[in-house]
C-alpha cells in the first residue's frame, strides 16, 4: 500500500494538482505521452450487408448480388464496386495499402442485442467487459482510457476506465460546469476565482484523506478518489479545447475523437455510424444500405486523412500509432426476401485500417452456403484444418495489439497473429 500511496501523493503534487480548474496545462499542452497503440472503434449497428462491399460473391446461385455491381480489385483488396458508392473505391484507392478486410467472422446469434454483446465482448452475459474496456483497464496511465462518443459500450467492472460523453452532451456540461445552470433548483455559482480556491481545498482534502486512512479499504478508496480527482482536473483543463458538440454527426464524432487522441486524453474512442434502425434492412436492402456505405466510407476517408495530418503529443502523426476498427454486429442473409430486404446472418466482416495490421489484404471468406471459411490464425490464410474465426478471435487479436495478454482473459482462443504487421 505504501507504494500506491506514495504514487498518488506524488500525483497530487504533480502538474495535475495545479491550482485552478481550466488552468492546469498551458494552452496547446498535452496530458500524456503514453506508448502503445491507440484505437478508434467505428460501429455500424444493425447489421451490414457484407456482399455490398466486402464480399464479392458474384456468380453464386445462393447469393443475390446487385445488378450494377462489379467485382473490383485495388492492390490486394478485392471488393464490390458500384457506381452509387464512389467513396468505397476512393477509400481503397487512398488507404487500401493500410487496410485489412476480415471476412466470414462468426457471430453466433441472429438477435441484435446478443450479436452486439458477442461482437464486442465474446459473450452474451451481462457484466462481461468489451474489448475496449479490457484494454482500457490495462491503460491506467491515460486520463480517460476509453472515451465513448456514441453507441453501445459494455464496461463491465471497468466503468472507471470507460467514459461516455453522453447523448445529451452531459460530459461537456460537467466539465465546463454549464450543467449546473441547467439544473433546478439552483442558485448563483461561485466566481472562477473562488472556484479555484475551492479546487485547491478539494485537493488538500483528498491528500488529507489519503494520509488519514488507516485500513486497507479506506486507503484504497482514498487513493482511488485522489487518482480520480487528478484525472478529473486534468480532463477539465483540456475541455475548452475540444469540439464536444458533435452535432449528432459522424464527422462531428471524428473531429472529437481525433482531437481527444491528439491531446493524449484517451487511448481509444468509440464511434457509431448511423443507427440500428438505419442498417437493419429487412426491406429495400439496397436502397438503404448503399447510401449508408457511401457515407460511411466518405467519413472513414476523412478520418484516416485527419489522423495523417494531426500530430499526437509526441509530435508524430496520429496515424502512426492508431488502428481504426470498423465493425457491424451481424451480416445479412445472402438472398433477398419478399420485401427486397435481407434478414439477419451470423457471419459478418471487419475492416481494420492503420497501424498494427498487414494492409492491402483480404483474409477469411464465405463458402457457397455463406458460412465462414476456416483460417490458419498464424498466417491469416485459408486453411480447411484451421479455425472458424469468430468474434472472440478478433477480440484476442485486438487485445494482443494493445499489449494485453489475451490468454488470461480468453482461454484457448488464438489471436490472429497472421494478421499483424
Amino acid at each position, binding site marked *: 500500500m505504501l507504494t500506491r500511496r506514495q504514487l498518488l501523493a506524488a500525483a497530487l503534487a504533480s502538474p495535475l494538482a495545479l491550482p485552478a480548474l481550466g488552468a492546469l496545462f498551458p494552452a496547446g499542452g498535452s496530458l500524456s505521452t503514453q506508448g502503445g497503440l491507440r484505437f478508434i472503434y467505428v460501429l455500424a449497428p444493425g447489421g451490414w450487408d457484407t456482399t455490398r462491399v466486402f464480399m464479392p460473391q458474384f456468380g453464386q446461385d445462393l447469393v443475390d448480388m446487385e445488378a450494377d455491381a462489379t467485382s473490383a480489385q485495388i492492390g490486394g483488396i478485392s471488393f464490390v464496386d458500384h457506381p452509387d458508392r464512389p467513396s468505397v473505391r476512393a477509400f481503397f484507392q487512398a488507404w487500401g495499402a493500410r487496410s485489412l478486410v476480415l471476412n466470414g467472422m462468426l457471430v453466433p446469434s441472429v438477435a441484435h442485442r446478443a450479436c452486439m454483446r458477442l461482437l464486442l465482448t465474446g459473450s452474451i452475459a451481462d457484466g462481461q467487459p468489451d474489448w475496449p474496456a479490457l484494454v482500457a483497464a490495462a491503460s491506467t496511465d491515460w486520463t480517460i482510457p476509453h472515451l465513448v462518443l456514441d453507441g453501445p459500450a459494455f464496461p463491465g467492472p471497468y466503468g*472507471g476506465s470507460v467514459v461516455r460523453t453522453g447523448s445529451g452532451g452531459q460530459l461537456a456540461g460537467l466539465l465546463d460546469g454549464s450543467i449546473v445552470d441547467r439544473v433546478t433548483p439552483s442558485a448563483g455559482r461561485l*466566481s472562477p476565482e*473562488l472556484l479555484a480556491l475551492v479546487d485547491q481545498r478539494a485537493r488538500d482534502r*483528498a491528500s488529507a484523506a489519503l494520509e488519514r486512512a488507516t*485500513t486497507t*479499504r479506506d486507503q484504497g478508496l482514498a487513493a482511488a*478518489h485522489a487518482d480520480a480527482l487528478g484525472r478529473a482536473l486534468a*480532463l477539465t483543463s483540456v475541455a475548452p479545447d475540444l469540439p464536444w458538440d458533435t452535432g449528432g454527426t459522424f464527422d462531428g464524432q471524428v473531429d472529437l475523437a481525433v482531437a481527444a487522441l491528439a491531446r493524449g486524453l484517451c487511448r481509444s474512442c468509440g464511434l457509431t455510424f448511423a443507427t440500428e434502425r438505419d442498417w437493419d434492412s429487412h426491406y429495400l436492402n439496397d436502397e438503404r444500405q448503399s447510401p449508408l456505405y457511401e457515407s460511411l466510407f466518405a467519413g472513414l476517408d476523412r478520418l484516416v486523412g485527419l489522423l495523417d495530418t494531426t500530430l499526437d503529443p509526441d509530435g508524430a502523426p496520429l496515424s502512426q500509432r492508431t488502428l481504426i476498427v470498423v465493425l457491424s454486429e451481424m451480416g445479412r442473409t445472402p438472398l433477398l426476401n419478399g420485401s427486397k430486404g435481407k434478414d439477419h446472418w451470423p457471419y459478418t466482416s471487419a475492416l481494420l485500417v492503420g497501424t498494427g495490421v498487414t494492409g492491402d489484404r483480404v483474409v477469411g471468406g464465405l463458402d457457397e452456403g455463406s458460412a465462414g471459411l476456416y483460417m490458419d490464425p498464424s498466417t491469416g490464410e485459408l486453411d480447411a484444418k484451421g479455425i472458424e474465426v469468430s468474434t472472440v478471435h478478433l477480440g484476442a487479436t485486438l487485445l494482443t495489439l494493445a499489449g494485453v495478454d489475451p490468454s488470461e482473459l480468453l482461454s484457448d482462443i488464438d489471436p490472429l497473429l497472421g494478421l499483424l504487421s
Partner: protein
Amino acid sequence: MRGRLPGLWLGLGLLGLSACKKIELSPGTTLDDPQALLARASMDLRGQRPSEQELALAVVDPASVDDDIAAWLDAPTLSDRLVALWGPIWLTQADEYLVPAAAFGEQDEPAFLRSVGQQPLRHLARVVTDDRPWSQLITADWTVADPLMARIAPLERESDADGWQLAWYTDYRPALGAFDSPGMYLRFTSTEFNAQRSRANAMSRILLCDDFLARPISVGRGVALLDQEAAQEAIRTDPSCKACHDTLDPIAANFWGFHQMFDSAPREYTWYHPEREVFWEVWSGVGPGFQGQNIQGAHELGPLVAAADGFTSCAVSQARQVLLQDAVQAADPDGTERSRQAYDASGGRMKAVLWSVTQQPAWRAVGQESAGDAGRKLISADLLESSMAGLVGATFRLDGWGLTDNDREGLRTLAGGVDGRFQTQPADRPTPTSVLVQARLAELVAGLATQDDRPGALFAADDLSADLDTAAWNDRDRSLSLRVLSRPPTEDELSADRALYDAARATGATPAQAWQAVLTALLRDPAAMWD
C-alpha cells in the same frame, strides 16, 4: 430490536442543537465509533446523512443506533431505498423501452421511463415494507401502480392518491407478482424465434440467481441458426444446446401470454393475451414447465419458483450484496448462514434478513482492518445525489429529467450508476466523472444552502450576513462537517476551512459566498462519497 430510550431523546430535544455541539465527538475514521455506524445505517436505509442530534445521541447511547436501524426498516423512506438497492440487480430501469411514452399517448417521457422501470421494483418494495413473504415477488395476485401505470395498463388502484398504491390487474392475468408488470416485458423483450427465452432468463437471473446467459455457449458449425426447423432440432438433440434449453425452454413457455405481436397497438405491450398462451406449440414445441415438472401454464409457475432450490439462497445473497459487497459475502459463510436463518425463521421475510445483515460484523465493522474486504463502501450514484440534495431539501431536475436516474439527459453512469442495458455493474471506486458529478452537486447544494431566502438547516441567517467570531465560526464549521461527513472536523481541517473562508473574503466575497466556498469544498471531500 429494542425500544428507544425516550428519556434521552426528550433530554436532547430540550437541549437543542447548541447542547449537542458540546458533546465530544470523535473525528476518528473507524466505525467502532457509533457515529460512523449510524451514518452507514442512515445512508443505506433512508438515503440521507444523519442529523446532528442523531449523531449526538449515538455517542451518548451507542445502543440507540440499533433502535434507529429498526425504525428506518419500518419507515416509509425504506421504499425508495429498496428500489435503489435492487435496481442494479433487476436492471429494469432503462433509458428506452420497446416503445416510447408517445405510444400510449403519454407526453412525459421521463415520467414514463421512471414508472415503467420502477413498477417491478416498487412491487418488491411493497413486499418488504408490508413485511410480506419474499415469495410474493412471483406469487402475488396484486401489484402496485402509480397514476401513469394505471393509465397505460389494465390496472385498478386502491385509491386515486398520487404515488404508488396497491393495485390489481383487470385482465385476468395469472398471479405472477412483480413478473406481471408491463415493465418486465417492455424491458425484457422476445421475438417469436426467441420464444420467450430472454424473459425466462430474466426471471431465473433475478429470482434464482441463475443466469443462463452467463453459461458458456458453444454453437456448432452444423447448427443452421436461420433454418428454424434445424435450429429447433439442435436445441432438442445437440448436447451443446440441450443442457440449457431443456431447463430454459419450459420456463419460457409460461410467458407467451405476454407476447407482443403488433407494433402499433399500445394494448400489445401492457395487456395480457391469454389466447397466445399456446403459441409455444408453434414456436418452440416445448410446453410450460419448471425444473422438470410439467404444468398447465403461468398460473402454476409462481409457487414452484418460490419453492425452488435457489430461491431462498438467492434472496439471502441479494440482501447481502446490496448492503455489503460481493467479496464480503463470499468470504463470510457464517454471516450468510445467519442471514439464511433469519429468512427461514421469519417465514421468508426480507426485512428480517436486512436486519440480520445490519447486526453482523461485516456491515458494522466499517473502517476496521479486521473486517478485511469489508469496511467503507463507495456510495451509489443515487445515494450521492440524495444524501447531498437532502441537506437542502431539494429534488434536482435537469430539463425535466432526474439528475442520476437516467443517461438520456442525466448523469447516471457518469456518476457510477447502472443503466440497465450496457453498464450493469455500479462503480466500486471513484472515477474521474463521478468525482466531477460530486463537484457539480457540491456547487448546487452549497449554492442553495447559502441563499439569502433559503437558510435551511445548514446555516442560521446571521451566519451569512456578517463574519462570525472565532468560536461561533468554529461551531458552524463543526456543524457543517457533521452534517456532510457525519464526523466533526480535525483541528487541521478547521484551520484549513478557516483559511479558505478568509481567502475568499480577501477576494471581496461576501460572508455568504465565503461560506459557499467552504461548504462546496467540504461536499467534495472524498468521505462524502462513502459510508
